[in-house]
């Protein structure tokens, strides 16, 4: 099988062209075609000599993979299904937002893994287990092959998988999205979300300027570990400490995601503890409704409770918003992405 060019950084492309006996500047031309223009085949790279294109095509392919299906929500959200490797599939959610006056915004929620290893109690992706890491090309293909590509204003790594469990590929994809030779997007338009895998998070904060979102869901360690097994390894106080020790003087933002579970994490006690642990952070809290998944012991808090929770936090000076649910009817909303029925099971994962 030919190797895909999509997903290669400029320095990787330089290595490729040099190994083929071509001039180094050809790498920049290839990057231009891969990330800035609308072609889909090496043969269409018109400013490259014909024999150069042929030479490249012998070993490499452009690397685009079209979506296999799309579902459209009544609210305009679209859920795309992309093949990723043999018998593996991922989903991406395209979320247009016309409501902001004058400025329309469109966000793509991309996946970073096929499945996920983290086993959070409230997440549908967790139920399918882990199948594969996505390459940087497979991450970027979700963007590059999107029919609405030119309308995109924001990218969030909040689809299937834990981005920092696939750190190298995620970092490469962010580099390509933000580099001048790449998509040249502002890092301010990119948010990477984590459940708090500390080593990967620190590297990400050192190496990129994109925003960070941390899934919090409870300020209490004992409670959090029943919702999110990762708490048993990377404890919340350590996650917060690691964040505090980084440089936040620039325009980079941090947000904490907080799914609201009825009777579990939506009380006065939680507000007080949140204020305590987030004291000193310049951050935003996004409150999310819980989208029920099969056999879940959890229920969502009602809207009144969520509004009360938000108002209490705001009154104490913490920027807090309730994030609108999008694409719930097509299972595109937060925590609902799954390709469980489609992925090929590994044969050696018996236990």
């Amino acid at each position, binding site marked *: 099988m030919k190797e895909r060019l999509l997903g290669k950084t400029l320095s990787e492309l330089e290595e490729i062209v040099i190994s083929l006996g071509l001039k180094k500047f050809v790498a920049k031309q290839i990057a231009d075609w891969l990330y800035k223009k609308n072609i889909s085949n090496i043969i269409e790279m018109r400013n490259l000599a014909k024999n150069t294109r042929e030479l490249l095509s012998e070993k490499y392919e452009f690397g685009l993979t079209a979506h296999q299906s799309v579902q459209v929500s009544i609210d305009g959200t679209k859920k795309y299904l992309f093949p990723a490797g043999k018998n593996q599939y991922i989903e991406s959610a395209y979320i247009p937002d016309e409501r902001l006056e004058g400025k329309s915004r469109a966000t793509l929620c991309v996946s970073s893994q096929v499945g996920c290893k983290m086993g959070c109690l409230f997440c549908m992706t*967790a139920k399918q287990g882990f199948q594969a890491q996505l390459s940087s090309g497979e991450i970027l293909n979700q963007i590059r092959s999107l029919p609405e590509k030119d309308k995109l204003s924001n990218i969030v790594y909040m689809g299937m998988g834990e981005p920092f469990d696939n750190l190298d590929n995620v970092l490469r994809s962010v580099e390509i999205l933000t580099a001048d030779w790449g998509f040249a997007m502002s890092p301010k338009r990119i948010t990477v979300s984590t459940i708090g895998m500390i080593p990967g998070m620190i590297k990400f904060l050192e190496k990129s300027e994109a925003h960070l979102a941390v899934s919090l869901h409870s300020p209490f360690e004992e409670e959090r570990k029943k919702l999110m097994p990762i708490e048993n390894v990377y404890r919340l106080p350590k996650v917060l400490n690691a964040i505090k020790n980084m440089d936040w003087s620039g325009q980079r933002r941090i947000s904490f995601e907080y799914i609201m579970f009825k009777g579990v994490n939506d009380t006065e006690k939680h507000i007080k503890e949140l204020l305590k642990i987030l004291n000193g952070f310049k951050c935003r809290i996004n409150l999310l409704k819980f989208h029920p998944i099969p056999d879940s012991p959890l229920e969502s808090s009602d809207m009144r409770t969520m509004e009360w929770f938000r108002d209490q936090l705001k009154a104490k000076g913490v920027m807090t918003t309730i994030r609108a649910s999008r694409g719930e009817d097509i299972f595109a909303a937060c925590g609902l992405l799954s390709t469980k029925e489609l992925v090929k099971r590994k044969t050696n994962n018996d236990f």
Partner: protein
Amino acid sequence: MENQKGLFSVEVVSNVEISKGIFLLSVKRIHDFKAGQVIALTVNDGITPRLYSICSGEEDELLSILYNIVPEGELTRLMRMIKKGDTIKISTPFGNFLGTDDSAYWIAAGTGLAPFYAMFKSARTDNKYLIHGGRILESFYFQDELMKELRSRYVRCCSQQSGEGVYEGRLTNYLREKAEFPLDHKYYLCGSSEMVVQTRDILLSKNVPFENIIAEIYF
């Protein structure tokens, strides 16, 4: 001695294959820890450390871990070649998957036994039940020791072979068939994400409150 990444060099005392493809690596203990904690481990600075649950008692002289060979993994390939007297790099122990005095079920798949073995060696076990799943009969490392003390509170589930006193089938099948689980006990799970998610769903379907289920996932 601590290096820049917070890792310490320690001397390897033994590195033994205790079951097909499963190794017990022991080093001289230089830190205190709590049973259930993990260490980050690597063989040299060029390779990203991986996390391993400690598989020895809090008072033991040696600190041990269990590992299996990951086919695509450079680290475990190198770990396999380590000999007595070599040095490896480990972090200070950390993590919060800790045993308590509560009555509890320990449910482990494969090398997920490690934290429970550490708890077994470190504290009271008269109110603990251990359910261990493995593919082959050789998977039940430490079984003599465990059986002697836990007796009928120790259950082995073997998915690919049959043997005397061993439940034939996956541990998830065993759990599905088992009629009742005390709802006031704690349930500690350790294994792959698939094992943890499936086991948790079975326990929830048997009305175990989610607050009583604590999981550690190997990633």
